[in-house]
């Protein structure tokens, strides 16, 4: 039932889709994007793969059980609220750090980004749990 066109196209589409999902995730603080859309994008990349080939190979490609991804994502999102506590602010207050990535280039990394990464993982995990279990049905 899988078509050659879909399979070939998926091979080419899959990496850009994943890269684009990360781009959406990082862009999300000030512009349209964010963890939810990014997670959906990554999830649809894997769904596409499962449609083109089969669920089993998509699972293998993912390496981790989607339920573990969900749990880790929730943990990351929860953990993003904690740094504020050490500075004496209310839970989940945005906290920012300056991270030098190259001499002369410093970027702002904040707890909202960590939260977004958590959301990304949760959405990816939940979506794939659903899709995989429905796909293995028949």
């Amino acid at each position, binding site marked *: 039932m899988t078509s050659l066109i879909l399979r070939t196209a998926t091979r080419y589409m899959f990496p850009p889709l994943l890269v684009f999902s990360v781009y959406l995730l990082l862009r999300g603080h000030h512009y349209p994007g964010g963890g939810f859309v990014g997670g959906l994008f990554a999830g649809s990349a894997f769904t596409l793969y499962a449609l083109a080939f089969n669920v089993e190979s998509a699972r293998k490609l993912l390496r981790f059980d989607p339920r573990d991804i969900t*749990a*880790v994502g*929730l943990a990351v999102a*929860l953990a993003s609220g904690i740094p*504020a506590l050490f500075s004496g*602010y209310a*839970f*989940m207050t945005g906290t920012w750090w300056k991270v030098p990535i190259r001499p002369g280039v410093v970027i702002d990394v904040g707890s909202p980004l960590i939260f977004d990464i958590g959301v990304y993982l949760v959405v990816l995990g939940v979506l794939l749990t659903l899709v995989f279990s429905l796909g293995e049905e028949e």
Partner: protein
Amino acid sequence: MILLPVLPIIIPLAGAILCMLFRRNLALQRDLALSVSTLLLIVAVGLMAYTRDGTIAVLHVGGWEAPLGITLAVDMLSSVMLVLAGLLAVAVSVYACFDLDTPRVKFGFFPLMLILLMGVNGAFVTGDLFNLYVCFEVLLTASFILLALGGERPQLEGSIKYVALNLLSSALFLAGVGILYGMAGTLNMAELAVVVQQGERGGLVTMVAVMFMMAFGIKAGMFPLYFWLPASYPTPPAAVSALFSGLLTKVGVYSLIRVFTLIFCTDPEFLHTLILIGAGLTMLSGVLAAASHYEMRKILSVHIVSQIGYIVMGLGLFTHLALAGTIIYLAHNIIVKTNLFLVAGAVNRLKGTYDLHKLGGLYKERPGLSILFLISAMSLAGVPPLSGFFAKLTLIIAGLQQEAWLIVAVALIVSLLTLYSMTKIWAYVFWKPAPNELPDLNPMTPAAWFIFLLPMVGFTVITIGIGIFAGPVFDYAQSAAGQLMDPSGYINAVLGGGE
């Protein structure tokens, strides 16, 4: 203090995450669920102590002051509910270790239970209508899966009715939230209260209030919106039924109380009278339906409905004393109803059936279990000196003060009929000789059986305790009701205005 109000949400979430990560280690999941529930209970008691003198614990999550950000506010009513939820969680975790079959545990009973608790606690602590909606959805989604877990045919049928009606109620709730936002430009409950009290657009407010009444009424199981309840609650295993009967409808009732004392209290002649009529019909129809059933869990499920009527009756009367009665009744009902479901589960564990006609003679075999049932059943019916008696007495005195003769008469008649239903179960299951010898299916060792019974013993002790220490309990309920009747303290605490 900076963290205290958010802990009841974080702790179950962290527990659920750990349970999900250790999916394969079932023994560890059990221990985790039990310790997380215990921790929750401790935190809840801490919150209760903190709010004891009438202070309201407020947390602005993320440092965004109300009404801009997400506000959590815990007053006395919230902290009572949190303590009860914690108690229930501990009891159900202990019970579930023995009652649930391995496939259900493997599929994730414990993480789901903890996520359900997160939603329930979130609904109790939130100070924002939209977050209330989100918490409702969290607990509903978890409850959908818990209800269908196992996939037996009656469970699936019950789940469909439950899912369809609850989603309808959520859509109504959401629409009400939208209209309120359009009207007031805020969803913070304290600020909404201020805006609504200014008294503009009274008609629109009343309409939205009725939408909320419908939405929460479906979730709480009020007449005539409760038909999903007897169709779905008796279908899952006893641990799940007990959890649902103790918490889910009560979250609906809590939301009714919160919204109709804080926000929609400008037109009590219409709104609260409507609630009162609903309460009377809920009581009556629930108890009459129970008379026709001969299955233990079915009887108990329709009795949930009739008990909801009593709880809501206090809100409908809308006086200080009546609200105090509502709070006592809420606490009493959560404890006693859960306990009855647990005992019913134990009976099923012993004999493999819930059918009144097939059961019998249990008093001779298990006098301890029978006494536990008898005390809870009598408490439910309102026999002194147990907790149900004082709860009903408070409500009835409040009704007499308001000269609401009709509702008082209904409450008394329903109380009598409740006694009839409970005596029916007692006579059929425990008293009459067994129709034909059912083999004892219980494979537990006496030690395991003892631990299995512990939660029920605990609840029974509490119902007797509330009866004996009725004075302090009543004082507490009085001050909690005082906070509800005079929302200015809540509003000032959240908005930071006033002083």
